[in-house]
């Protein structure tokens, strides 16, 4: 099995916009409401765990939106880095920067919501669940993703999704975030012919 190497930025052309700035704001707001409705009233506060790096930024935003909704306890916010749990660490890909894993409160018995920017093969989520398992035993783990682009390689499904798009294997979904100095938007790109 050969590793999936993302093509360099220069080789990709933008094909269409999936979400613009307002669209992303609406999608996140809806996700926050859905989370409150689905798990907000079950025991302790929601424990949002963002997957570095994109998911961690989105988890912060979802936490703010959930807090603003006012009728549930203030969510706990954490972040995980999955670099050391990947199944393709030594398949010739450049090694990613390892970011800190920061889980400020014990996971035991909590309602954890994993947050990712783009849900694709499911391998990232598999790795993130392994990280959680090394820190404790949550009561339940849910998955929230801003974009579900399909093409799963593992039996993993999201609970809350911002937007679902059909994609081809050669395409790539890029989430741009103001936290990284870009304008909020999601675009579908494909390799230059």
């Amino acid at each position: 099995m050969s590793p999936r190497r993302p093509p360099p930025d220069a080789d990709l052309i933008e094909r269409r916009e999936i979400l613009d700035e307002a669209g992303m704001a609406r999608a996140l707001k809806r996700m926050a409401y859905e989370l409150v409705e689905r798990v907000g009233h079950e025991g302790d506060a929601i424990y949002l765990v963002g997957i570095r790096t994109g998911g961690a930024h989105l988890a912060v935003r979802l936490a703010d939106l959930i807090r603003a909704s006012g009728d549930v306890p203030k969510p706990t916010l954490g972040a995980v880095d999955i670099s050391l749990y990947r199944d393709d660490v030594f398949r010739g890909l450049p090694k990613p920067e390892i970011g800190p894993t920061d889980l400020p409160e014990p996971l035991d018995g909590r309602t954890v919501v994993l947050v990712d920017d783009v849900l694709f093969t499911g391998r990232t989520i598999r790795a993130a669940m392994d990280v959680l398992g090394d820190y404790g035993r949550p009561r339940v783990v849910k998955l929230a993703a801003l974009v579900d682009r399909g093409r799963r390689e593992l039996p993993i499904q999201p609970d809350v999704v911002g937007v679902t798009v059909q994609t081809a294997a050669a395409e790539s979904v890029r989430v741009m975030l103001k936290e990284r100095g870009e304008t909020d938007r999601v675009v579908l790109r494909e390799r230059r012919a």
Partner: protein
Amino acid sequence: MTSFPHKHLLGIETLSAEDLTTILDLGERFGEIASRPIKKVPTLRGKTVINLFLEPSTRTRTSFEIAAKRLSADAVNISGSTSSTVKGETLLDTAQNLDAMGPDIVVIRHGQAGAAAMLAKHIRASVVNAGDGAHEHPTQALLDCSTIRAHKGTIAGLTVAICGDITHSRVARSDIHALSKLGATVRVAGPRTLLPVGIEALGATAFHRIEPALEGADVIIMLRIQKERFGTPLFPNTREYSRYFGLNARRLELARPDAIVMHPGPINRGVELDPAIADGPRAVILDQVARGVAIRMAVLYLLGGGAPDPL
């Protein structure tokens, strides 16, 4: 993205400042794993690390073993007394036999300078030098830099005094290379018989008395007299050595008030280091040991692929 364009870690001399920083940064990340409820990540699952220690060692061997295990690699330890070298097998034969069993990384400590480099030429596995004679001990220098950076914030601009048996110290050599590449000013001090001629060529200033070397230093690294490495006595007796070159409270006052005291271990208490200082608030010796595990995890992680990234 992290890049480390080396298959082996044989010494600090051949590394760039960027390579050193890559390892130090990664070491900081790996340090966090020690505080987790499950102190293990699956990263090197299925990889085999052989620790071939043909010279006595507790700290370094245990540290490499724990580092490999925290990364889920399988670690096999071979020490001098249990190896076939006592039956007359050459190092190269031992290593090639081990290599035939398919390890991914061989960590070697050996009494001869260049042993690790020789192995690297003849076996397929990545080789990590865990000390070769009086030549280099790269992971010790890296954990020293990691400790200094943690306590001082940065290494560039600091003055570091390395005192004691410089001649027989691979730690001194690796430290001098690492600290000067990262921008520190390095002083070495020791009796003339334990201070090699030409050490300045490595970028250190040499002193034959300890006091001027300590003056205004930010970091003091004390070294043990490596009696096992020389036959004829090179100084009258340990009492006299301690009187002239031991670090005590009075001498420590010459350094900066916030100076830290380090020692690669094992310590000969009362010889190079006053026990009150070794156990005192300025000593960061056990912190060095703790950081050693994280640094070695970083090294095993970077080499664990068996080959540099083909980019």
